[in-house]
């Protein structure tokens, strides 16, 4: 598959959108008395995903998307999800 920038951007957007939906629903399945810190981390990761989704779309041309920024965003999301999983 030829992953040109436009297609890669679209794939990223779809991935982020799926994470956004899952991430928005998942925290509410936790025990909201015992797992409040995890709830905070997961909701924060969802907000970062939302910001990245807006960032991917809020461009006038494909070339303006800074992939390093997206990578940093993904790393932050992964870190927050990790904290959400290990924190009570």
């Amino acid at each position, binding site marked *: 598959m030829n992953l040109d920038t436009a297609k890669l951007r679209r794939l990223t957007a779809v991935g982020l959108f799926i994470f956004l939906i899952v991430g928005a629903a998942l925290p509410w399945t936790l025990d*909201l*008395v015992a797992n409040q810190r995890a*709830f*905070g981390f997961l909701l*924060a*990761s969802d907000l970062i995903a939302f*910001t990245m989704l*807006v960032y991917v779309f809020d461009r006038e041309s494909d070339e303006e998307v800074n992939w390093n920024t997206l990578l940093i965003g993904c790393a932050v999301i992964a870190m927050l999800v990790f904290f959400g999983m290990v924190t009570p």
Partner: protein
Amino acid sequence: MSEGEEKKNAYERFVGWFDSRFGFEKTMLKPIPDYSLNPLYWLGIIMLVTFLMQGVTGIYMTMNYVPTPAEAYSSTTYIISNVPLGHFVETLHLYTAYAMILVTFLHLARNYFGCAQKKPRELMWVAGILMMFIVLGFGITGYLLPWTVISKSATDVAIGIVGYLPSQISSFAASLLSGTGTDAAELTRFFSIHTVWLPAALIGFLALKIYMFEVHGPSYMPIYGKAKKSKIWPWFPRVFLYAAKLIPIFVAILFVVAALFPLVLPPVYNPETVSAYVIQPDWYFLAIYQVLKFGFFESSHIPYAIGTIALFFVVLILLPFYDRSPRRNIGSRPVYTTAGLIALAEFISLTIWGYLTPGQVIPTPVALAGLFGVAIGVTAVTWAAYWIRKRRALQHPTAKPVLPAEKPAPTADKNTVPDKASFFGLGRYTRFTTLFFVFLSVASVALACLTQNAAQATVNLTALLVPGCCFAFSMLCLLWMVKRAVVAFEEGRIAQ
């Protein structure tokens, strides 16, 4: 889709769907220039976001909080232990309050150094200062509500200070804050002020400020603006999407901080155990608290301390009415820039000094040395920058000025294509300013510690060396930064 209509992508269809239903593009707020798509222009909106978060988390807590001395603490612990998300919401309420106060201070500093108070925005400045008092009022009144030993005792100290005001004011203020003087009356009044009066007042001022912002638009600040022609963006979708990136990141940071550092409630208030604790206000009042602890303001001289603090705020609120010069650039305003930096450095150093010396009265010589030391240090650094600028200008008459020259706001040019922006438009100026303030803060704190330690009866060499080295290093860094900035401007590496 008609044949003549261009094929739209998913994003355009999505935006178009909303716009065709709500008409945002035509009705929602005035278009704003490209240079204001920078977080430093958005501190007011961030403050509004914190206020909304305060409202949501506060309303959630009021469903379980009972504002009586007997049940305030137990209902707070009940929220923390038993209510779903109660601990998280309680913590978030606290950190959002801190963020609100911090953003208010940053907004004030940014408007001061960017001259946003100049004509025709004088009344926006006055409204902003009054809003700052309301925000600090939120802090005072909210601090008491959990009824902990620290919060109740600190509030009693604050109410006690009101007694030093002229009798006509103090009797009214005392009846407003503590009513009949019982604990129940005090808590009921604080709860009422915190949840009804102050939010109503803040909403009124917010509406006024937003209206005035719509009339005057964002104030152009040469130090932060981009040196190019500015494009005008409509609020929807461009500016709206910028906000949709900025605000969730800010909220996410608050969520992470709340998750990392959950609130730990101090013990319940008990008059018999108060003496075992050192009474300390929250961080935003530590600077004022430190001033009240100075030897020359002790006991009967407290009215003078209150008068001095009140005078500072009067001078601050009247700023746009005596600083009427059209000059807006820090490069051409050495006196106001130096005064602002001194005030900032004094606030930071007094806050940390107050934190490090809880309950200690500061002897007069130490207090004077700390106050004047910070002021002289800041003045020396700032004036060194202006002196280097002047010397370079004399040596190279054709060279560009050291600090950005006075220039009009970029004109709107609809045909100008904006440069490829960084994630939030953070430019060199912002990074330079941030780093400069970091070193300035370290230098101020180190000097305060140095002065404090030097006045101890038994002088510890390590206690002098560490802050001394920090102070010397920070001052060297500040001078180096100033020198680098001078050279960069002279060589034209930093755009005018």
